[in-house]
């Protein structure tokens, strides 16, 4: 399987969806994120990302606000439009 390109969650544009591929930042951070729904393989949709300040994502039916610093440590693989499900629109 070819390695797909991953970007930090921080760079995901509003309206786009992605799959979480890696959680940097140490065990405690990964633990906390996983418990809130952001685990490896979970589908994330970016709701708001203004380029500065915290951002808002939708993951496992939960709206989560994240600091930019945190979002930089989460690596995601963006989903192209054909991979998205209608519910993501």
């Amino acid at each position: 399987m070819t390695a797909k390109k991953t970007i930090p969650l921080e760079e995901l544009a509003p309206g786009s969806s992605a799959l979480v591929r890696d959680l940097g930042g140490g065990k405690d951070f990964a633990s906390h994120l996983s418990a809130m729904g952001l685990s490896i393989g979970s589908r994330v949709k970016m709701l708001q990302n203004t380029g500065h300040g915290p951002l808002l994502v939708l993951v496992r039916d939960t709206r989560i606000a994240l600091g930019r610093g945190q979002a930089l440590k989460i690596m995601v693989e963006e989903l192209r439009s054909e991979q998205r499900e209608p519910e993501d629109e």
Partner: protein
Amino acid sequence: MSNASQKMSERPSVIDSKPSKQGMLIGLAGQPNVGKTTVFNLLTGLSQHVGNWPGKTVEHKEGTFFHNGTQLHIVDLPGTYSLTANSPEERVAREFILHERPDVIVMIADASALERNLYLLAELLVLPVPVVLGLNMMDVAEAEGIHIEPHVLEAALGLPVIPLVAARNQGVSELITAAEGLAREPTRFQPVRPEIAAPHREVLAQVHALLNNHVPEPYCADWVALKLLEGDAELTEKVHPWLPEDAWLSIAALLKEHEDAVLDIASGRYEWIERMVRAAVTHPRLGQISVTDHLDRFAVHPFWGLLLLLAVFGFVFWITFTIATPIQHWLDVYVVEGLQAWLATALTEAPSWLADLLVHGVLGGVGVVVTFVPILAVFFTALAFLEDTGYLARAAYMMDRFMHFLGLHGKSFLPLFLGFGCNVPAIMGARVIDSQSGRLLTILLAPLVPCSARLMVLALLTPIFFGKQAIWVSWSLVCLNMLVLAVVGITLNRTLFRGQHTAFIMELPLYHLPGLRSVGLFVWNNIWSFLRKAGTIILLVSIIVWVLSSFPGADVEQSYLARFGQSMAPVGELMGMDWRMIVALLSSFIAKENAIATLGVLYGAGEEGRGFAETISAVVSPATALSFLTVTMLFIPCAATVAVMYQETRSWRWTLFDVALLLVIALLAGVMVYQGANCLGLGVSSA
């Protein structure tokens, strides 16, 4: 994972030996915002007792409930997303389960976010306690188009699953029946537990084998092994002394090699969750936009959201003081003064010192405490509404940008903003902040927000000394406070709180109508705890200050308080203040407004037909007034603030640290301002 279930049926039947008359202990668990508190309030009502877990600042709530003749003790565990060692709330929850040995855990889940909620269930199932799952907010789930079959989920999970709509009191009784039933027959509890993802299964088995029989009661090897692999700080420390050195070294080596095991543990849990949920939940892809999404388009909009936020906070501020102030006044005049008058006449036979002590010292102190109650009542009601509806999370999200660089949490904004009215609700309002360090920092910084009492002193004194410039002087003093707040915040954050600052990650729950019962209980619990704790301290301090200012002489000038002020004269000189100003500062410790009254008395206002303004400006120079005002603005406002600070931090260390810190800052600022103003030629009074 079969060891745990074996252990359970082997468990020295703590439950079987309990006759139904003696009651049952139930733990109520769940993630935040799932309606757990609603269920708890429905069951326990006013029987609930809110305190703190021993040695911690985490709120402890428990209550009793009678069901079919059995008395049930219910403990509302803190809402947590998981059971790691990373926060005091989580530690409290798991310690309760391990050491208090509840008969059953009732876990409340939000049916509209079931996948995420079951993560906590996955954690609970590794602990030696039976669990019943309550699926709350079934109505919200249905509205979102999510259809869940509780029976199917029950069959898949192997434990009772009860649907509820707690907000309408539907299903709660069935939930308790199921919980009681399971507690009486723990062998019926045969859950299907999650497994760690394949890559680390072998390692987990190895760690488990190394732990062998060294795991003491009440811990169980399954849970300990899993937690060690997760990198659990608390358990890693605990386990070391249990094991022979070579076993420990082997485990430590394994853990070091597999630091990424935590990701596989999480994946394993979600794999299990997906299996459980697959048959039971149908999530039609309707692409509906919920009410929450509609509202959020404005609430978190960079421009409209900010406008809404300012409007909401302005409204809360306005309503707190508009409703509370007349009630305060009424209480002061009709209740407190009325009581004082009555008591004075009742004690005409008693020695005058006793009458004075009781009427002015004690009742006076009570009066001070009582004046806070209306403000707190209105404020807490507003706060409960904001939190319950879900709006507070949006406000925190919007404000986080600004609060973050101070090391504060977005949720710190509302409490600090309230501080402009009064610091007491500001400090108590810090309870809404989830992280302990964020909460502590907010509490420490709250006194730097100039409260209305201080603003009033400002408004009274500045025109006397600065005439037309009064507004500018006042404004600069307020800005000075804000500047000091920012500097202290950043400094404290960098030094004391380094490494403790938790990442900003917060759930924005769905909007919903607030439960009036919950709001009522929240307000009641908070006011009651204020009266019990801070109230007694304020009363004591009032009495002490009254005694110090009334003895031994006939008037203030000869009192102990005055003598203390005189002894402080050298320090005062640096700030341009004589002993009388110092005494005024000291007396303002009870209430800032006292400063004016004391100044009036000490400077002999009203004598020879001269008013307060004339008297004071003749004796005191603008430079002195400026330094007096600076110190007043920057120092801890009053005894009530200190009392509440102790109540909320539960630590004399932090309270005294803040008092000392602010004292030093205030004095330094006072000295600098006086010397500076002196140089500018303001050091001469108008006489």
